[in-house]
């Protein structure tokens, strides 16, 4: 024992001579200590693995969001070109009848062609004229047509109009530095068109504006004319139908099963089925919708009504399960107290249990609506994956939804649709984030801790 202390003292003195702390010195570790070190090491590893997996998934998410934003942010601006348009009577309505038929069938493209030719008289051959005309969106004449149809007195006048540029010009102006003519081929712009565009910029006949078309028009085959209004409206109608069907049914089912039903083989069967249904692949619900709603009940194909009903089937089990969990969390003392005050069982369930469970129910409900909003595959079977330009005005009008619109745009060959797709994804993500924030807020604001 003494010799041990003496050795310690010697070590301490040696350490002091080396200007080190004399009281720290190494000693053989006991097996228990070794075990402790190993345990701590393992624990550290486990924590590091967890952190790494979070970092990896964050990296993927960040990459995804960055690529979506990088591709899509340009879609919120559009390039317009100022053209002096002459509403010549000879072209629009040579006979001077001013009837709706004459005005609607007129060749408004020619007005644009004429005005371009006046601006750039150097385009002489047919090929050059076609290249020149290709600078302006093919749908630009819809705007002139609408103006003339609304106000026929425009005929004979001249106005400067901002018209949308063609998709490749739009991308070129937004993405290219314009300092040199390198990489023109990537945008399908030739040297002559490049010179014209430079002239337009110098003459202040070219501007970038906020892209209102994207929010005010339906689908189109021209990227610069396409918008998400019809699909957003379709999504809204579909979700409304879904809410009106799924919420009352789901809540009523859960209330009955939880508060009134006797426990027997029948309710067990129902319970197993509900849990199973929550895990069924969503395309199955589409098939069910096709055969029941469309083929048997004869509802119109591609309509928001059928879409909403199919999505209602999809979220029903989720709502039932969420509601039952919320109801279960309400302590029995509430029920006893209400019963003791003379309330009937239904009054207990509806006036007390249900009200106290409502925050939990709402959270589950909002999250299931978010899921329904992002669904595409069940809609494929019932014809909602379709090209719809008109904004649906009723539940039975043909419509499509935002995720479907995204899917359809990815299939289009034109490069301009890439930014449209990314922009639509951004809109969908914003909506979903809002819904999730709302769910979180409802939970925090109204949650009752027992």
């Amino acid at each position, binding site marked *: 024992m003494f010799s041990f202390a003496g050795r310690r003292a010697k070590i301490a003195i040696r350490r002091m001579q080396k200007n080190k702390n004399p009281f720290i010195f190494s000693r053989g570790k006991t097996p228990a200590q070794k075990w402790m070190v190993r345990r701590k090491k393992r624990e550290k590893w486990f924590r590091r693995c967890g952190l790494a997996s979070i970092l990896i998934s964050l990296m993927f998410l960040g990459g995804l969001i960055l690529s979506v934003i990088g591709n899509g942010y340009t879609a919120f601006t559009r390039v317009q070109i100022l053209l002096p348009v002459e509403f010549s009577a000879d072209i629009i309505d040579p006979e001077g009848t001013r009837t709706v038929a004459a005005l609607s069938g007129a060749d408004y493209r020619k007005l644009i062609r004429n005005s371009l030719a006046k601006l750039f008289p150097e385009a002489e051959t047919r090929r050059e004229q076609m290249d020149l005309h290709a600078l302006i969106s093919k749908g630009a004449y819809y705007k002139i047509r609408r103006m003339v149809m609304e106000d026929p007195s425009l005929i004979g006048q001249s106005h400067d109009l901002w018209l949308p540029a063609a998709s490749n010009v739009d991308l070129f102006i937004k993405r290219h530095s314009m300092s040199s003519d390198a990489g023109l081929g990537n945008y399908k712009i030739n040297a002559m068109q490049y010179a014209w565009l430079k002239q337009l910029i110098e003459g202040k006949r070219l501007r970038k504006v906020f892209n209102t078309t994207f929010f005010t028009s339906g689908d189109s*085959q021209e990227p610069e004319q396409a918008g998400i209004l019809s699909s957003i409206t379709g999504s809204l109608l579909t979700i409304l139908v879904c809410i009106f069907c799924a919420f009352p049914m789901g809540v009523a089912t859960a209330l009955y099963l939880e508060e009134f039903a006797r426990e027997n083989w029948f309710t067990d069967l129902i319970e197993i089925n509900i849990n199973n249904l929550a895990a069924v692949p969503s395309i199955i619900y589409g098939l069910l919708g096709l055969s029941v709603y469309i083929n048997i009940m004869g509802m119109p194909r591609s309509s928001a009504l059928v879409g909403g009903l199919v999505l209602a089937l999809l979220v029903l089990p989720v709502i039932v399960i969420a509601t039952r969990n919320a109801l279960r969390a309400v302590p029995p003392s509430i029920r006893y107290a209400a019963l003791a005050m003379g309330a009937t069982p239904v009054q207990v369930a509806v006036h007390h249990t249900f009200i106290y469970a409502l925050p939990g129910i709402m959270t589950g409900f909002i999250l299931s609506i978010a899921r329904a909003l992002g669904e595409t595959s069940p809609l494929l079977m019932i014809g909602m994956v379709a090209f719809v330009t008109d904004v649906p005005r009723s539940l039975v009008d043909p419509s499509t939804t935002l995720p479907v619109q995204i899917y359809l745009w990815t299939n289009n060959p034109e490069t301009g649709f890439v930014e449209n797709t990314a922009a639509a994804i951004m809109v969908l993500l914003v909506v979903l984030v809002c819904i999730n924030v709302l769910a979180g807020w409802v939970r925090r604001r109204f949650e009752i801790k027992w």
Partner: protein
Amino acid sequence: MKPCFNVSTAIPGPRSGSCSVFLVAALAVFFLPSAVQARDNIHIVGSSTVYPFTTVVAEEFGKTTGFSAPIVESTGTGGGIKLLCGGVGESFPDMANASRAIKESELKLCADNGVKDVTEIKIGYDGIIIANSKEKELYDLSKQQIFSALAKQVPGKDGKLVNNPYKMWSEIDPALPAVKIEVYGPPTTSGTRDAFVELVMEKACAGEEAFKAAWPEEEMRKKNCHLMREDGHYIESGENDNLIVQKLRSNPQAFGIFGYSFLEQNLDTLNGNLVDGVEPTFEAIADGSYPVARPLFIYAKNKHVDFAPGIREFLKELVSDKAAGMDGYLAVKGLIPLPEEELQEMQKRVSDAFSVKK
């Protein structure tokens, strides 16, 4: 075990009406839509290859006439014709896009369901392109070489059929590059695939003695000629042609099979390789010298003129010079237009079949 207190078993008593109000409301919403109104949109289903062309016409039609724009669904040729032949009536589509001609069996299905008069309208041609990245050189492939690269079975050295042994292009022909055979193409559900195997695989296979020896009956021989290899050298890439375009950009050694409109939109990054010495240009497909081209169709039910307004006018717009002509807006989208005479024949066919009979 139920954690909650089961009220109904504890105390029986009168129930208030509020819960049943819920149920009644839910049921009412559920069964309300039995009163369905008449359709005011034309309904078109079918091929995803024809989809971009039909939708352009639909959009133009909706914006420039008083009718509402037709609804176009992309279901694939087979699925579209099946829907079309489901029967006559408001709940069935009016027209189907098809990237191949209608089959005997499909016509029989139509007839069984009482769909008698279906008008076939050819709207133009589409070339099937064997493309690769612009970073690599342009190749001239013969049908025989393509067949050797992609078929499931090829004639072996002893003249008998063996499973495709080729792994590199240079094994087929020393003039071809020494890179792995990797071809992205459409799956079996696609009309593009049907046309490709018919135009390339079947033609190349017809002259092979080994196939004649192995499958004496023509039906069986055809079926086996159509088989593509499944050992990872031919990669099915779904109906989305943009995906194939992206794959070719990231993997310059690979080839891809898709329609001409996708090549035209991506000429800056992709080569359209020559087949049998012919380059897939607009002109070569239009005059029929490019060998892998197929017609595109729209099938319309004559009787459906009564079910949706504007069918007559829509079809007229579809075959008009303004749309399907040489300088029409469909040609701008990548459709190879019909020759002058054939287009006139189509215009006549439409005005005959859908004339006003009164």
